[in-house]
């Protein structure tokens, strides 16, 4: 028995130093750790007074500077949202305790059941109601992490939206967002840094969730037929540009009212069977010579790069058959990563250089066929001749990364260029981009740039990416980028950073945790926000 007493005494002495707030441990027993991420742990807890089960999320205040706003959480009141009970804090940690919701997370619930389109629509409409209450709050609250794991289906079938770690109130007039949080695949483009996320960020994630519910995959999968009304809703929810999405969830809910009356979930097997029977019928047709008219030569629009042609076809949903001028006029966006083409930013953005094969594209001349092109996103190629970009009248976003570019002269000849993401392109001089008066975003990370002289002066750039650059100093950055609001410095090494302080409009910088101390010291006493990211 003495042995047991010794163990108890040892244990008490080890846990006397616990970093959790003492009053939290006095009120609650921690029963299980449900999730642990850097600086944040979620526990199932039991209130000592009455045995009630609850959920506590504890934040290491040093590692997780953006703790949720408990006052905001308490103000939110809806049957589809958990109640927030109390918070405990000490100098190291903040623990927020909320209601425990009995039920299954949607990822488990949907996996174990075959949901009909009617079930999905009804679930989605209930989620719309919850989001409406968040977005209708004053100020509006954006959840920013809508995904199946964060939706609990109660035994009654009602749903509850949980995990407000990264929810935030939208500040009117604020240009850009704080820092990337959220879940890859469900987070919209603007949540990756540039641009303020508003309620349309939730609409994007809602669209991805709908796709996941209908097809079983958050990614676009052209092999699964979806109810056409549902497809339209998903496409509009997940448009790259926020202004092309539904403007509010009320509108989404109204659109959902029309779905499901005629559509049904179609399995990939059924689609393949249908395709096979079509081929057999067609073969029979050929045998009797009925369809041979199709074989007459038609004037063909010739692409030099098959992958660019495929990306164009994916964008307009015409994967086969001859392309007409009218078809080409409909192509406004292109997405290619390595040797694969995609039909939207979301799938493109999920790709990784480490896991995809380098692509075959050598020239962008084909883009001259696509006169209405607005956005080009191409990554992970070899040496690429960019001449084909010059003069495209509607192009405003050029994202070319992880390749070797012939230069930026042709990019500088894009008259309406607003966003240039030229990350890891072997560039040593981008001063030609001074010709682009509308340039707002310039990302030149991981290039052969050792001085701002190689970058030039860009009076309208708001968002500046200098990741992975080694610079001696940034002494004249304020003269070169007088309007810069957001500067990304992750992985970089600027030996003399004091020039950053002179940026008159600087609002936020992004750094890695190992850079955080030096940068925080530099901006001590200012309003500049230091965002610490993991990569």
């Amino acid at each position, binding site marked *: 028995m003495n*042995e*047991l*007493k010794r*163990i*108890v005494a*040892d*244990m*008490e*002495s*080890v*846990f006397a130093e*616990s970093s959790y707030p003492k009053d939290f*441990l006095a009120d609650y*027993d*921690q*029963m*299980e*750790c*449900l*999730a*642990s*991420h850097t600086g944040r*742990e979620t*526990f*199932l807890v*039991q209130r000592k007074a009455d*045995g009630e*089960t609850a959920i506590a999320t504890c934040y290491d205040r040093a590692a997780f500077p953006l703790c949720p706003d408990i006052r905001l959480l308490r103000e939110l009141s809806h049957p589809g949202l958990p109640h927030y009970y109390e918070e405990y804090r000490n100098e190291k940690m903040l623990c927020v305790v909320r209601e425990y919701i009995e039920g299954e997370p949607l990822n488990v619930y949907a996996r174990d059941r075959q949901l009909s389109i009617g079930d999905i629509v009804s679930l989605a409409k209930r989620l719309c109601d919850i989001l409406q209450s968040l977005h209708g709050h004053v100020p509006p609250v954006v959840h920013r992490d809508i995904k199946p794991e964060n939706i609990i289906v109660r035994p009654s079938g009602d749903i509850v939206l949980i995990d407000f770690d990264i929810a935030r109130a939208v500040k009117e007039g604020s240009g850009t967002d704080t820092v990337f949080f959220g879940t890859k695949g469900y987070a919209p483009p603007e949540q990756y840094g540039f641009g303020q996320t508003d309620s349309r960020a939730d609409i994007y994630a809602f669209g991805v969730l709908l796709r996941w519910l209908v097809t079983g995959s958050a990614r676009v999968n052209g092999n699964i037929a979806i109810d056409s009304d549902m497809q339209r809703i998903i496409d509009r929810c997940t448009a790259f540009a926020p202004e092309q999405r539904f403007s509010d969830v009320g509108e989404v809910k109204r659109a959902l009212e029309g779905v499901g009356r005629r559509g049904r979930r179609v399995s990939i097997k059924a689609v393949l069977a249908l395709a096979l029977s079509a081929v057999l019928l067609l073969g029979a047709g050929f045998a009797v010579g009925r369809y041979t008219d199709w074989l007459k030569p038609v004037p063909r629009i010739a692409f030099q790069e098959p992958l660019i042609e495929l990306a164009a076809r994916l964008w307009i949903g015409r994967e086969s058959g001859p392309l007409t001028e009218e078809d080409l006029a409909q192509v406004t966006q292109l997405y290619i990563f390595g040797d694969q083409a995609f039909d939207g930013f979301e799938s493109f953005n999920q790709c990784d250089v480490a896991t995809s094969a380098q692509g075959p594209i050598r020239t962008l001349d084909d883009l001259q066929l696509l006169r209405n092109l607005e956005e080009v996103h191409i990554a992970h190629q070899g040496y690429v001749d960019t001449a084909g970009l010059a003069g495209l009248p509607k192009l405003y976003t050029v994202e070319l990364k992880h390749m070797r570019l012939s230069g930026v002269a042709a990019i500088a000849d894009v008259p309406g260029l607003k966003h240039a993401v030229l990350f890891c392109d072997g560039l040593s001089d981008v001063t030609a981009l001074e010709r682009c008066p509308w340039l707002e975003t310039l990302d030149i990370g991981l290039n052969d740039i050792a001085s701002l002289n190689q970058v030039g002066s860009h009076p309208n750039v708001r968002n500046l990416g200098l990741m992975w650059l080694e610079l001696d100093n940034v002494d004249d950055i304020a003269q070169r980028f007088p309007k810069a609001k957001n500067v990304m410095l992750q992985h970089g090494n600027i030996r003399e950073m004091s020039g950053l302080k002179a940026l008159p409009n600087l609002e936020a910088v992004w750094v890695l945790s190992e850079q955080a101390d030096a940068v925080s010291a530099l901006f001590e006493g200012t309003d500049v926000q230091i965002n610490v990211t993991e990569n």
Partner: protein
Amino acid sequence: MADTNRISTDELLALLFKERNLEHFLQRNESAYLTASFSDYLNNWCRQHLEVPEQVIRRANLEKSYGHQLFSGKRNPSRDTVLQLAFAMRADLPQAQEMLRVARRSPLYPRIKRDAAIIYCLHNHISLVDTQIILQDLELPLLGGREK
């Protein structure tokens, strides 16, 4: 209590706390276990160790019919039940974590005082009864003391 390979509480916990990336403890490889059911796991263990379910159920201090329902797969165990069975099966920490994974329950997490005590007891093969005494002395909920 077994006395072999014993390391002190502080040594064990210091080791655990030194583990910079606590996520290791929470890593789940769900796909690997999707097909293995907890009842299969229990029955396989009994076959390998030449034991009958009754012995395990008794040592785990579980109610008899509930225990048999776990072995037949009619019921899914709570996290505490999995841990009681781990003690009954003389599991060490990795085996207990594996049992929790198969049962799709949260793994033991050393920053939680109750879990740390359980980890220590499993590691040192302290009996379920003595583990309950330790939990009681630490004023922590006993294993099986509550049902979620």
